[in-house]
């Protein structure tokens, strides 16, 4: 077994063991924390596809996270108030069915990623960063000024959405659901990165001119990666809304985009389980240092500096070796 595979297995088992032990000890808070790690890791898995494999430094991924969150929030709030979303030209009602909400979150995020990506990917480097940031902030300010869904105050989901055959109000069952979705997405991303598409995307990051010369158009590849990436982050947003039973414009803010990027960088850019390790480390630090100081982000910043300067493969890279991921250097 490769060292990185071993580390990934340990991480998976650890992520599964913590809430199970907490469940046995009736520690609901720890289960909620583990669920938060899983959901934030999922958001990072989405970004990692664009950032790690495609080299697309998107500072607007909160846009997809927020769209997923608001898809869940809006559908749930209409279902709870029995007030249809629209009646003409056809009737659309709210729903509390998680599969329907997830599907809508994925489709909406993917469509927005397609539209914003089609424009953003015509630029590169710092311009790409700025245009994705601008799109994210557009959504942020739009939701702030959208009184129908709470505006700046956000929107509450009074009862967690439902999944057939499960009691999603039970923290361990909701954790299980999120964990399965994370594993499915990790499997999809792992398969994608080894497919011709993923390899061509990786090659385009390494040498765009050379990739064109072998008949591959980087723009289409990157757009496809951006759409899949946005869809995964959108799904994470829908789960996050259900975890907190609340959505607010903060989900769209550049601060959220930055946090998702921090998970990826801390864990290891282009490492499959990088976002999982990064999100876990982030939540552990938040919990451990929040009690020590209100300004715990200072310590996080210092850690990020150390990772960027001395461990560019992130936590996974540090443990597994530099080239284990076969991706970003």
């Amino acid at each position, binding site marked *: 077994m490769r060292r990185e595979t071993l580390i990934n297995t340990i991480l998976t088992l650890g992520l599964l063991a913590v809430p199970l032990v907490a469940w046995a000890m009736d520690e609901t808070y720890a289960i909620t924390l583990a669920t938060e790690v899983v959901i934030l890791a999922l958001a990072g898995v989405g970004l990692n596809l664009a950032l790690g494999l495609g080299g697309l430094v998107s500072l607007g991924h909160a846009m997809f996270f927020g769209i997923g969150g608001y898809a869940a929030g809006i559908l749930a709030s209409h279902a709870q108030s029995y007030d249809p979303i629209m009646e003409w030209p056809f009737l659309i009602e709210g729903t509390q069915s998680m599969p329907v909400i997830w599907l809508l979150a994925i489709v909406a995020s993917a469509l927005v990623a397609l539209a914003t990506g089609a424009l953003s990917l015509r630029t590169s480097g710092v311009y790409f960063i700025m245009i994705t940031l601008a799109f994210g902030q557009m959504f942020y300010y739009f939701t702030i000024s959208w009184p129908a869904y709470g505006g700046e105050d956000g929107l509450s989901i009074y009862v967690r959405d439902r999944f057939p055959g499960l009691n999603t109000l039970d923290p361990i069952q909701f954790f299980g659901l999120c964990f399965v979705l994370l594993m499915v997405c990790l499997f999809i991303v792992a398969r994608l990165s080894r497919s*011709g598409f993923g390899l061509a995307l*990786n*090659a385009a990051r390494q*040498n765009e001119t050379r990739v064109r*010369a*072998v008949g591959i158009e980087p723009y289409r590849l990157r757009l496809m990666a951006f759409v899949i990436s946005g869809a995964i982050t959108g799904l994470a947003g829908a789960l996050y809304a259900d975890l907190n039973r609340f959505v607010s414009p903060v989900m769209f803010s550049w601060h959220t985009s930055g946090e998702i990027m921090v998970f990826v960088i801390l864990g290891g850019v282009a490492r499959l389980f990088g976002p999982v390790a990064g999100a876990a480390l982030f939540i552990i630090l938040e919990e451990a240092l929040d009690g020590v100081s209100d300004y715990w982000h200072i310590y996080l910043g210092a850690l990020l500096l150390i990772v960027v300067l001395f461990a560019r493969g992130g936590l996974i890279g540090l443990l597994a070796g530099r080239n284990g991921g*076969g991706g970003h*250097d």
Partner: protein
Amino acid sequence: MSLLRLEHVSAFYGPSQALFDVSLRLDQGEVVALMGRNGMGKTTTIKVICRMLKHRGGAVMLDGQDMARWPSYRAARAGLGLVPEGRRCFPNLTVRENLIAPARPGPWTLRRVFEFFPRLGERAGQMAVSLSGGEQQMLAIGRALMTNPRILILDEATEGLAPVIRKEIWAAIAELKRDTGLAILVVDKSLRELSRVADRGVILERGRSVWGGGFDRLDADKRDRYLGV
């Protein structure tokens, strides 16, 4: 009709003119050597053919189709397989991944490339950056073959390689000519090897094609004047 035809092509790098009047043709199953001293426009001509550089005057035709507005990926999809100067493999991909990434359907498969270059098969899981120069060259040729091209373009394929590896590369080119009927445009400095493999040659001098024909017609005066040998 020629498979590839360049007619009175001119091209610029910004304001600086690199090609003034280049004409050449390449037919199916033919090997043509593009020759000339350093800086005479060989690589620029290849860049124009592969659409990595747009020409300003003249015409570049593939199968009778004008390539003027084609981006480089379209030229590659239409059947131009480039083995660039300096190899330029994707360093952070393995040998297998370098070959799979650009693969398009056709007779050249991963298995066939590994049969053609057994050494690549032995190093399939190794990162391209860790290969020797000769192995990287084989990989660059293999990668071009995986696109299942109609024309293989080799730019200085043996440059900087050990004599024994050069011999292997020339043998591979000869085998491709003999067994596949692929049209090949080859740029190299070794006149001796070129005259063995190529059917015809074209000489570039200061951005102009000044001579073309069979190697039996390449007299000592032209060799001395245009090639410095």
